[in-house]
């Protein structure tokens, strides 16, 4: 097909007509584009990838078929990746090409919109955490935790090098943390859980002068709300270790403000807002107290003024970043999750404080109610601890893999933790099916 329009052959996204290409080649004095390449013959590729060109209709149809291979299960899954209903307006607004197809805001004069949106995102996290600084995002909760540990390495006031994390830390977080600290002097150690939250006595034994960083989550990976976060903070503080709290913005809207229990850093999964189930894609929340300002990893948007003395926003403190400071940067991060942060801020603003707290309250009440219904079944115990829960909780059964398989047949997905333990996560998106889940569990365990 000639002309600029989408046809076959060549890139459909290169707009050149044959005439234009010819004129450009002519201006450059070459016969074809290949002449412009300076690739030694020895390393030139003369094979083929064997990938046929397809029109967009075919690609869409093919991928629709591909995704249709996924079984249609109602998911009661959480453990760090949460789905709340995301209003359609968030999809619409965030999909505007001005947001979706823009680059990092290196020219603030023509990117005020995104800069302001990120400034607002930071502000929402400042309010939720009680800390005075939040960056514009890390990749996910795992990266945020790992970067927080590295921060403690840069700012530590102790001579120690131990990072203390819960033994029940989700594997993806622990694995990422291990990799991130591998190049530093830090070593990762764990403290035990009791009743699905920190074993305070054991933690007290574990924290010592070698400890530079103590990490606690609330809710924990099994949804238990840490009953005495302040006590953990105190332990860290007594040993001059940084206290880092892991949470998410929905939980933070209801649970005690981390700053008020002594948190120096808050990390977590901010994709609980704005992001639907997306196979683990996340949004790393990272907030810390002002004293670490020049050691923060990632991007920061600050308020400034333009030449007309009007309010304007800009990326700031870039001397922390790799493109300026290279090997002395506070992180190697460049592209982060800006667009997901935009969506999270939109979702938060849509809900407002009432909506956020209401959603959080539902996470408490619905989890309790579904746990009670399961607990009422013969041979089922839920939850398996004495904690308050947020969204999710553990469930004891005789044959957890067998029950999960039975549930799968009936259209439900739950977590299997071990041979006798399941985990169930309840949100606004699956709560309407909770009765059906309970009935299915009853059937499978009968």
């Amino acid at each position, binding site marked *: 097909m000639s002309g600029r329009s989408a046809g076959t052959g060549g890139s*459909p996204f290169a707009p050149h007509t044959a005439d234009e290409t010819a004129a450009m080649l002519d201006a450059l004095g070459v016969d074809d584009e290949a002449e412009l390449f300076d690739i030694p013959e020895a390393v030139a590729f003369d094979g083929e990838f064997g990938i046929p060109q397809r029109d967009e209709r075919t690609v869409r149809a093919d991928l629709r078929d591909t*995704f249709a291979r*996924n079984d249609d299960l109602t998911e009661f899954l959480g453990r760090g990746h949460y789905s709340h209903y995301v209003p359609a307006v968030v999809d619409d607004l965030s999909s505007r090409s001005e947001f979706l197809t823009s680059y990092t*805001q290196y020219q603030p004069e023509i990117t005020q919109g995104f800069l302001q949106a990120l400034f607002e995102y930071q502000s929402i996290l400042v309010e939720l955490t009680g800390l005075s600084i939040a960056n514009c995002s890390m990749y996910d909760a795992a990266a945020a935790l790992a970067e927080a540990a590295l921060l403690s390495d840069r700012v530590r006031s102790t001579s120690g090098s131990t990072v203390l994390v819960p033994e029940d830390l989700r594997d*993806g977080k622990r694995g990422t943390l291990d990799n991130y600290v591998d190049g530093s002097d830090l070593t990762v150690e764990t403290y035990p859980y009791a009743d699905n939250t920190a074993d305070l006595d054991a933690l007290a034994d574990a924290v010592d002068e070698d400890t530079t960083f103590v990490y606690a989550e609330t809710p924990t990976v099994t949804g238990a709300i840490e009953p005495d976060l302040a006590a953990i903070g105190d332990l860290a503080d007594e040993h001059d270790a940084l206290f880092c709290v892991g949470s998410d913005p929905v939980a933070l809207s209801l649970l005690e403000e981390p700053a008020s229990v002594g948190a120096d850093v808050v990390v977590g999964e901010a994709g609980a807002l704005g992001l639907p189930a997306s196979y*683990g894609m996340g949004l790393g929340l990272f907030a810390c107290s002002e004293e670490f300002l020049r050691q923060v990893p990632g991007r920061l948007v600050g308020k400034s003024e333009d030449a007309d003395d009007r309010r304007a926003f800009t990326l700031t403190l870039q001397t922390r970043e790799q493109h300026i400071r290279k090997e002395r940067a506070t992180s190697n991060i460049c592209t982060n999750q800006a667009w997901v942060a935009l969506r999270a801020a939109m979702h938060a603003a849509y809900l407002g*404080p009432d909506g956020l707290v209401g959603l959080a309250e539902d996470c408490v009440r619905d989890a309790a109610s579904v746990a009670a219904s399961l607990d009422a079944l013969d041979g089922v115990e839920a939850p398996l601890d004495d904690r308050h829960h947020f969204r999710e909780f553990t469930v004891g059964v005789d044959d957890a893999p067998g029950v999960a398989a039975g549930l799968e047949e009936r259209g439900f997905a739950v977590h299997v933790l071990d041979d006798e333990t399941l985990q169930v996560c309840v949100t606004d998106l699956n709560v309407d099916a909770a009765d059906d889940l309970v009935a299915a569990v009853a059937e499978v365990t009968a």
Partner: protein
Amino acid sequence: RNEPLLSEKDSTALDPGEGSALPDDLTRDSLELPGLSEPELARHYTRLSQMNWSVEAGPYPLGSCTMKYNPSFADAVAADPNAAVHPDRDPETVQGNLELLHGLQEYLATIGGMDAVTLQPPAGAAGEFTGIAVAKAYHEHHGNDKSEVIIPASAHGTNFATAAMAGYDVVELPSGEDGRVDVEALEAAVSEDTAALMLTNPNTVGLFERDITEIADMVHDAGGLLYYDGANLNALLGRARPGDMGFDIMHYNVHKTFATPHGGGGPGAGPVGVVDELAPFLPRPRVREARSASNGDGERSDPSERDADDTATAADGGALTGHDHDHGHTDDAAQDDEYELFDPEHSIGKVHGFSGNWLVLIRAYAYIRRLGDEGLLDASAKATLNANYLASLLDMEVPYGPFHHEFAATAGDRDAADVAKGMLDYGVHPPTTKWPEMVPEAMLTEPTEVENKRSLEDLANAFNEAVADTDEELHAAPTKTTARRVDQTSAARNPRLSWHALGEAQRASENASGE
């Protein structure tokens, strides 16, 4: 007119603990946040969007950033509700996801000339980190005592930061006079301590490293690995493959090469490809065809089972030479192929909490299927044609060549950053400025293949007009933008990083003057 902050539109304070099912000591006492109705929200973000440049607004010739057009159909594909699944699903119930991931692993391996690919790294820099961590694990596994990573001075800042983060000392390599790697300087830098050399090719001024084979041999002979930074892969699509040049590890920037939207700073994806010898060290899990499918025995392999494909050739820790990894690539998965996750034998573990930026990976896969061989080859052709044509129209010197998809013009006696601000008034986005430093007052320009002749001419006009402006004019620029020149110094000197930091009085007065 400024758009008021969310907090200036509404601020509602409440006590979240009131009436909570939780006891008082677990709940916070106050929360003050804006809450907007949907119409207000729509206007707020619509107006903010109107103050933002994008690929659909006009040229975005940021050198080394490859701001291509992001096709709509890929967004539509990623929005498929069947793709919106939780990462902890039983793999047998998300065969669609696994089929796509497997297909993308294969595509990327083929395009890069690599043997195995992980899709887990959530951005290019995370890919670099993953790649260097894999190199480190490889060296440690083989008892190689390595402490240094060599990086050309003109490399991306992430290379340096990544090497340091992985615990390596950075050895900076000055550029040769021709703008390429100075082979003699490299020879001096390479030693038994060399864990890896990180290179991008074409380099950051668009030049192909002509001595790449010699460079690779030099590094390999010292027991080091060759790392390819995929930032400039768009220039080589279908014409040369890092694997064929001797690179052992590479990352792919899917937004740069495969047109996934940059989103104003992410989410990205930084898949990493490696040669066979390094495959056992890749992050876990990866995706492969289920052994039941290939064995025909109806049994699924245990994920912990040794993966012959990925470990068999990692025979020794010696020099890596003579790669030959042209795949017999099969493009289409049979509808009933089954896939499973597996953990590479010596996996470095995790570099992301789950499986990376899924919604981005979908788009990259869709883009590659759309373009196919023909489209990919044409992308590099037109990207290079565009860069050369644009440069030919500029009244500015371009010190190094022949360049491919990007070039570094020099603003000469003008301040490149000021020229960039001047360009803003011509309705285009300026290039990357003052980098790489080997070019004085560099304006690193990469128009990509999506500009047409006329658009390049308009862009050239903006360059030429701006560079011809007086210093006074440039200092006063821009004047036609949403904001005029933004004071970066005051922002950094007095950081105000949230609306809490603005102060009530300031907020009120600025809001009033902003309207």
